[in-house]
């Protein structure tokens, strides 16, 4: 802990930690400075945020626009299986689905990534070799994040060695909620370093942060610490990816790029089950952060059941009649 009363923190004794991009390179100089910065971020008008997403949610997306939205959404899916009962066989079948989501239509785009636990990343990497589909692994004692930092770092290194090129980490919500923001920041920095070349997605677990103000603060911590993506949830806690939370996080990535020039991606995860939910998120991105984020490199859906609904809607548009769950694979 970098603390002014801590003798290790005196000038000269401070270990060189990652400094955020200018103009924020001095906000992490001490606990109190960082707290002052985060609490100085503009407050979120919760009622206004809810009204804004409700209004955007009414936008009507039909016919060719809908077809585009569905294909774009499919190409942004992080196809996820995070169960205790996961097996190499299940991961391989998920990889097969990722390569060709709709076997009845070769024109269907492939998904962005397959997201698994770290020990199965190698299976996913082998099954996806040469496809361009990324292998994402959750790490840092997912989903609770309750482990010592050494264990978390080892978890990340293990996942990267197994073949993951994207790491989904969870922040220490306990530290965040007790106000030890610099601890949260330093942990993300350390994990980012352990990732090496792998992209880092930082899971805020917004369902446990309670307020939108906290969501904004946690987003800024993750971006300042060098996260490549900020992600809403683990999918294990309800509520997960709600639209007001998405609005606040998208505003954060937008503001961060304006201030520093660095673009950070956004990934809502958990609770997005229908095509309608997905399209609402696409509208929200376009209207909040801008079309630059409408790309699998900058936006992902963390989902498992969403893909099947996207495929059913796609089949409906293609064939002109309603499809049914018998026409997509059971996961």
């Amino acid at each position, binding site marked *: 802990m970098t603390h002014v009363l801590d003798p290790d923190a005196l000038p000269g004794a401070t270990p060189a930690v990652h400094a955020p991009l200018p103009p924020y390179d001095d906000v992490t100089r001490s606990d109190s400075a960082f707290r002052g910065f985060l609490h100085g971020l503009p407050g979120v008008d919760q009622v206004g945020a809810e009204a804004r997403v409700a209004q955007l949610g009414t936008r009507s997306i039909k016919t060719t626009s809908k077809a585009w939205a569905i294909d774009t959404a499919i190409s942004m899916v992080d196809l996820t299986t995070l169960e205790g009962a996961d097996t190499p066989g299940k991961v391989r079948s998920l990889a097969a689905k990722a390569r060709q989501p709709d076997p009845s239509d070769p024109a269907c785009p492939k998904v962005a990534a397959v997201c698994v636990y770290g020990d199965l990343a190698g299976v996913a990497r082998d099954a996806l070799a040469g496809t361009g589909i990324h292998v994402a692994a959750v790490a840092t004692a997912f989903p609770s994040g309750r482990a010592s930092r050494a264990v978390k770092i080892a978890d990340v290194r293990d996942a990267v060695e197994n073949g993951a090129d994207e790491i989904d980490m969870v922040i220490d919500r306990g530290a965040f909620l007790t106000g030890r923001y610099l601890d949260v920041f330093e942990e993300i920095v350390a994990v980012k370093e352990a990732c090496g070349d792998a992209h880092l997605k930082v899971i805020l677990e917004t369902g446990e942060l309670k307020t939108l103000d906290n969501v904004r603060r946690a987003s800024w911590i993750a971006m300042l610490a060098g996260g490549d993506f900020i992600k809403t949830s683990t999918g294990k806690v309800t509520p997960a990816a709600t639209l007001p939370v998405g609005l606040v996080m998208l505003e954060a990535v937008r503001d961060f790029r304006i201030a520093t020039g660095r673009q950070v991606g956004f990934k809502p995860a958990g609770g997005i089950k229908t095509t309608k939910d997905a399209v609402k998120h696409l509208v929200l991105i376009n209207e909040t952060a801008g079309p630059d984020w409408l790309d699998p490199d900058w936006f992902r859906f963390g989902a498992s059941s969403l893909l099947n609904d996207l495929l059913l809607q796609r089949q409906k548009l293609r064939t002109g009649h309603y499809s049914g*769950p018998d026409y997509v694979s059971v996961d």
Partner: protein
Amino acid sequence: MIGNDRLAVRKTYKLYVNGAFPRSESGRTYEATDAKGHFLANVAQASRKDARDAVVAARGAFPKWSAATAYNRGQVLYRVAEVMEGRHLQFCEEVAHGEGLSASKARAAVDAAIDRWVWYAGWTDKLAAVLGSANPVAGPYFDFSLPEPTGVVAVLAPQQSSLLGLVSVLAPVLATGSTAVVVTSKDRPIPAVTLAEVLATSDVPGGVVNLLTGDAGELGPWLAEHADVDAIDLTGAPAGRAMELEREAAGTIKRVIRPPATEPDWTADPGLSRMTPFLETKTVWHPMGV
């Protein structure tokens, strides 16, 4: 007491989907009139998206309903007859108004409709005995065949007989263990709406029956083409369009009941003719003697 100047409560009925009473997604309603053209009530006019939602509800209800014991299904159907009996007068009045029948004829139709539920309730645990078989095969196998429900059945209900006809096409679907999406008579929807209220307050699980008031000509093609519908009963299809609907249903190999040239006499004994089309036969070869 308030005198005759009391303002009557005009009714705007809704659909019955997944055990709830939603408005049509389209927001449309139409006026239902009696046989003489006088206004009776406003009724929701279902759209293709309501039909889609109804199919999702029926599919969701199918695993539990089809797995219920035949005895249990029989009890549930009998309970529907009990609740209908309690609304006897209301049904008589609605059938008399909607179909332009005399009080005694309306009463006979309602009685027959309630008896029809009881009749089908009795059939639930007898179907396997009558339609199943132990098959003599040349090998060391105990070989037997069992009737199983087909799945989600779309029903275009009769246009003329608004209660007895409706019950006669709906009850066999439930008795065999399938779930139903019913498009009611367009011009005589009121008894079907009351039947929905009966179903909601009896023991039929939500989603097992979904009643859509609206136009069979509009909804029929969507249901006939729907890939998640396993069978379709075209009894109430618009005149001359049954062939077209049957062709659309063939795309996903649905079971089809063709409409008769004219609406049949619903008081006649239906036999098994409306149950067998919605059953699939499962044959099991069980090794024995080893």
